[in-house]
């Protein structure tokens, strides 16, 4: 267990003008599970690789347990890493794969055997110990990769999109297993993913990155409920948050396209005249047919997902696409139906149009 401190860390490749990672600062506490989340190319893997020591740090400092490790070799940082494609040594058995790092460190033979057997038992790999990687399924290889990290008993575990090569069902199972593993080991873990479900379910906190810059660090639910800016709001959630650009005119919000939305007076007051974007999550809109209350619209598409349905509702006077609205799948509204929408006033998010920064919200 250890604390990892990242201070104004940047990465610039070659003579490139745009840094891959720009001045990111993060504190990862003892035993914390921190998820680095973002779209591809946002710099999250680069940041992880800088913590691992696989990439040079262009600026800033990385400290593990209060020791600056910028110039410390990966093997001396007391970390273990699980790679996206597992990176198992192909010609070694599962046992040798897990033992390799310990052998190189001249750990005593019986100690190696004990740790490998322990890890194999935890991960259900005991019957596979004498197999070679190519005789394993994707899920089993993933377990071996995790096992190889566990036996080292490192201070910090680093995961680089470890589940993205697995199929959906296996991914779900491994997610639960990783969560259990973290609870069992209580170790500090830093986990890179572009999958918001993994981020929400695994992380004690989620750090959202975009274009190399840190957008928000917070517990998953807070990132979801109180996104710091429009990027975070749009990146988390499926279907994504609806955005309605416009500005305050009089006592209501005039959307581009002409529609007028009533906003709580406090928000109206804080907004002033500047252009803004109102955001509302699909589940925060109440939909009903046969009333006169709310915004009128017509259902264009209805997607049933099981217990829930997503309705795409075209609202006259709203520029942009239809609004996504989440409802119970039993709802008796079909494509072509005229409906009324009532966004929950206390769940509205308001962002500055220019900067995307959050102005008001729950």
């Amino acid at each position, binding site marked *: 267990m250890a604390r990892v401190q990242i201070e104004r860390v940047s990465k610039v490749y070659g003579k490139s003008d745009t840094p891959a990672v720009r001045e990111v600062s993060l504190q990862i506490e003892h035993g914390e599970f921190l998820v680095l989340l973002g779209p591809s190319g946002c710099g999250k893997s680069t940041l992880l690789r800088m913590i*691992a*020591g*696989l990439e040079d740090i262009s600026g800033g400092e990385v400290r593990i347990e209060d020791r600056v490790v910028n110039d410390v*070799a*990966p*093997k001396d940082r007391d*970390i*273990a*890493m699980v*790679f*996206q*494609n597992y*990176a198992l*040594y*192909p*010609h*070694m058995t599962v046992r040798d794969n897990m033992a*390799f*790092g310990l052998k*190189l*460190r001249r750990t005593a033979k019986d100690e190696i055997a004990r740790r490998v057997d322990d890890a194999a038992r935890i991960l259900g790999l005991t019957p596979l110990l004498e197999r*070679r990687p190519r005789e394993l399924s994707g899920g089993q290889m993933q377990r071996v990769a995790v096992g*190889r990290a566990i036996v*080292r008993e490192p201070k910090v575990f680093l995961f680089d999109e470890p589940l993205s090569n697995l199929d959906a069902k296996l991914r779900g199972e491994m997610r639960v297993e990783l969560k259990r593993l973290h609870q069992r080991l209580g170790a500090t873990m830093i986990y890179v993913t572009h999958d918001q479900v993994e981020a929400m379910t695994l992380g004690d906190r989620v750090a959202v990155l975009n274009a190399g810059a840190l957008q928000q660090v917070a517990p998953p639910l807070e990132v979801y409920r109180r996104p710091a800016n429009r990027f975070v709001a749009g990146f988390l959630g499926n279907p994504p948050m609806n955005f309605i650009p416009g500005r305050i005119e009089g006592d209501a919000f005039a959307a581009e396209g002409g529609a007028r939305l009533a906003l709580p007076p406090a928000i109206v007051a804080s907004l002033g005249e500047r252009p803004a974007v109102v955001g509302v999550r699909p589940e925060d809109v109440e939909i009903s047919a046969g009333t006169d209350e709310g915004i009128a619209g017509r259902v264009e598409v209805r997607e049933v997902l099981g217990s829930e349905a997503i309705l795409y509702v075209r609202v006259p006077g709203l520029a942009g696409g239809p609004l996504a609205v989440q409802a119970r799948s039993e709802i008796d509204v079909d494509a072509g139906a005229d409906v009324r929408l009532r966004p929950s006033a206390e769940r509205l998010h308001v962002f500055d149009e220019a900067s995307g920064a959050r102005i008001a919200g729950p």
Partner: protein
Amino acid sequence: MPVLPPPSESGRLPAASPIPAAPVITPASTLGAGSRSGRRSGLRAWLGRRSTREAIAGYLYLTPNLIGFLVFTSLPILAVFAMSFFEGSFVSRPVEIVTGEAVAAAADQAVDGGATTELDARWVGLENYRRIVFEDVAFRRALWNTLFLMLAIPISMALSLGLAILLNRKIRGRVVFRTIYFLPTVASGIALFLMWRWIYNRDFGLLNAVLSSVGLVDAPGPDWLGDPSLAKPALMMMGIWIAMGGTNMVLYLAGLTNIDPALYEAAEIDGATAWQKFRHITWPQLGATTFFIFTTNLIGGFQIFDQAFVMTEGGPWVATGSGETYGATRTLLYMIYDYLYVYGNMGYASALSVVLFGLVLIVTAINWRLSRRLLGN
């Protein structure tokens, strides 16, 4: 009575249909009877199958190549086997003429297109092989020379691998270096050999000039190609120089680029040194490449000829006390060449070729076995 579903094209019942609870199951519904109807239209069904049609198309595409292989490779090989039981040049020559009368008769026959010539070939059975195995000292010398020169193979492979690893680094101008090292492979072999003949020249050669300028040898220096104890190492050194930057290096480079960089990163985190990364990742990952290069080089090694032909003409020649004279760089293929073109004994040359073929076969088989064990597949 419930109606049975008709058997599908393959003669089986449709998988999805529930088997009806018929009191009496008619033979037509059993698998055996179903396959009977399948057999009737078997050939047509087989021809109509997509996989069959694709196979036929595939073989059609291969036909030109197969015919070429048959005519220009398989048949000559069979001919060599056949000829190895004969002695002679296999060239037609005039029949022996004894009397003047016969000359006239022979001339007449020649005009008529009759047999005035005979093929120079006499059946000797296994005699050629007996000679090669039990008698021919020259064969043993040639085999020894060939094997000796083949010692260059592991050395040049190691150097190729080293070069490939160096040139796989992200260094400035690595494409230029790759090209430079590959150039000898593109150049004509004869031209290179002639250049090396000059390098090895005792009086005017580069090698002796360099060696004597640093005081390692006294002028005129060793006669690299003329000294029986130096000729073989000299040829080997040249062979290594030509081979190390060539195809072997390119193959190793290709093999190296196929290794997942994450393996090295994982090893880095595991704490492996440069040597340990090579030992545990690079070397095993290149196993198949190494095996391929080693096998092809072995086969090529048994066929060393042209460099000896150009550089030393099989010499320098050594006379032993027992009256035997042998060439220090005369290889197996050189011997075959001599029997074919110089001594005019196609039969013996063929037998030597068959023996060479056998040697290559045995060595390749051993190599194959070994690599299967080492590579594990």
